[in-house]
């Protein structure tokens, strides 16, 4: 059991973050808390993507010296994916925060239960 935990700790951590993020988005009604939950969800997904590429006893894929050992280099593709995903996550968060600023100016509150002018 303990070795299972130690082996899969990164997956468990990543999915823990994803589940916490989803819970916050579903349950909380303050808009800023929902945006923070979105950030946590993004972090969890990025952590999951990176941990897919790891190899035991791996090193960074950089050929800094001519004769370096390339047998244990980890997979570079998930790192490229996460680079893109982090930037996209930042862009969405920034846009969400700017919309929250305008929403507060219009309604005077950030409580999503009270911001419900559009109904059926």
């Amino acid at each position: 059991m303990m070795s299972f935990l130690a082996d899969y700790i990164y997956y468990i951590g990543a999915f823990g973050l994803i589940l916490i993020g989803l819970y916050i988005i579903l349950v909380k009604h303050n808009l800023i808390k929902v945006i923070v939950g979105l950030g946590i969800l993004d972090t969890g997904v990025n952590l999951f993507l990176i941990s897919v590429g790891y190899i035991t006893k791996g090193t960074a894929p950089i050929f800094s010296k001519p004769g370096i050992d390339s047998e244990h280099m980890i997979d570079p593709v998930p790192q490229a994916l996460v680079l893109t995903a982090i930037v996209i996550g930042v862009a969405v968060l920034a846009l969400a925060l700017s919309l929250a600023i305008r929403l507060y100016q219009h309604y005077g509150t950030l409580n999503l239960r009270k911001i419900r002018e559009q109904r059926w």
Partner: protein
Amino acid sequence: MVDPVLLIAVPLGLAFAIPLFALFWKDAAKYIPPAALGFNLVVSLLLFPKILEKPVIVFIGGWQPPFCINLVAGPVGVLFSTIIALVGLLVSIYALDYIKEGATERYHILYLLLLTGATGVVLTGDIFNLFVFFEVLCISSYALVAHLRDKAGIESAVKYLIQGAVGSSLLLIGIGLLYGQFGTLNMADIAEKITSASPISLFVPMVLLITGLGVEAAIFPLNAWLPDAHSSAPSSISAILSGIAIEVGLYAVVRVIFTIFGASSILLFLALLAILTLLVGEMCAFSQNNIKRMLAYSSIGQIGLILFALAIGTSYGVTGGLFQLLSHTLAKVLLFLAAGYMIHRAGSMDISALEGIGAKMPFTSLAFAVGAFSLVGLPPFIGFPSKFLIVRAALATKETVLIVLIGLALVGTVIEGAYFFRVVQALYFKGEKQNPGRKEAPIVALLPMFILVLPIVVVGIYPKLVTGVLNSAATEFLNRLEYIRNVLG
């Protein structure tokens, strides 16, 4: 032969250059999107004869797949990019006069980037690239819904953003699971390797991908954002969202199901979900008083019908679905463009406020009536052959479930006819009869509406004009092995 990369690279470069042009020439931002989209339209039409024989595969960067990203310009891709370019061009001409207040330069930059993202989604052959261009499409639409900065717009944009961002994260988890299992991100490569994997391990990534893409495609439980977003955006943006953005989302769902997973077992579940979407959409539309909200719910209903046709899974069904997609895009864009100026003239979005506009704005109301009748499916408009093809496809499978579902779809069509006829009645047969005072919409707005009416009528009378292309597109969707062979050699 033109390179299909130009369909994405040239509008992207022009969009980046708009702030630079705006330094010298004040109105540059208004005229560059029509120029870029006109270029796209010309390139797409030039590509048509070549791709009907064999799809054009473009390798980005000169490497071989699966070590590079590749674009697949096949019948489906070029068909969609032609529709995107044509509709985008017409709406950008309409917006020359319609968008007057607010940050107009930024509106045009975001508009061009939205359409570039849509073109990227339909042309790409790599699943992470699909995610990136899908994000380009979604984020520009979040920003454009909030363009008018009023209460309704900002509230709708916030709700749309949160739901869309959760969907994108689920999509990314699905992509991560696929990469972990198969070690590649190229769609053809994954499709090749899927045949040797167990169905249980494929179920979770497929559900995550469909849920993530389904938020933008407005499938039933995921479309809570749509009525608010499409009714609070300015009318030109509502037209693009209803006419292009949700169709491109639906394309992505279908591409994932047919080409990557080849999953025919989930199609029945999707057909049920589609009819549910259709009935919910049509019934909610019937009870609306706000015209743009009514049109938004009608979009949900039509997406349900298109998904049902695509989920039938036969060549007839997929051809019918693509035909219905074409007819919905043309008709819905026409409806929103006409409604834009009618609302501007009447001063409110209530249907009761539009009474008598038929006499005050004859051409615009005529365009609205043509769009409405086409959507309901009356001959001689394009809606008739497309719906007829779907019904025929459902009956040809001889499965009782599908026949029951198509019966329910026809009930939905009757409801659709009821609420559209109510609006047309208000336009023409009500309102004060004396001294109407004609003040038509400006010519830059009438021209795109007229150009949209043309294919609605012409293809409605001669559907054979487009069925050849639609058949090749349907074959590309259903024929996985051909797709894999074309890309990987």
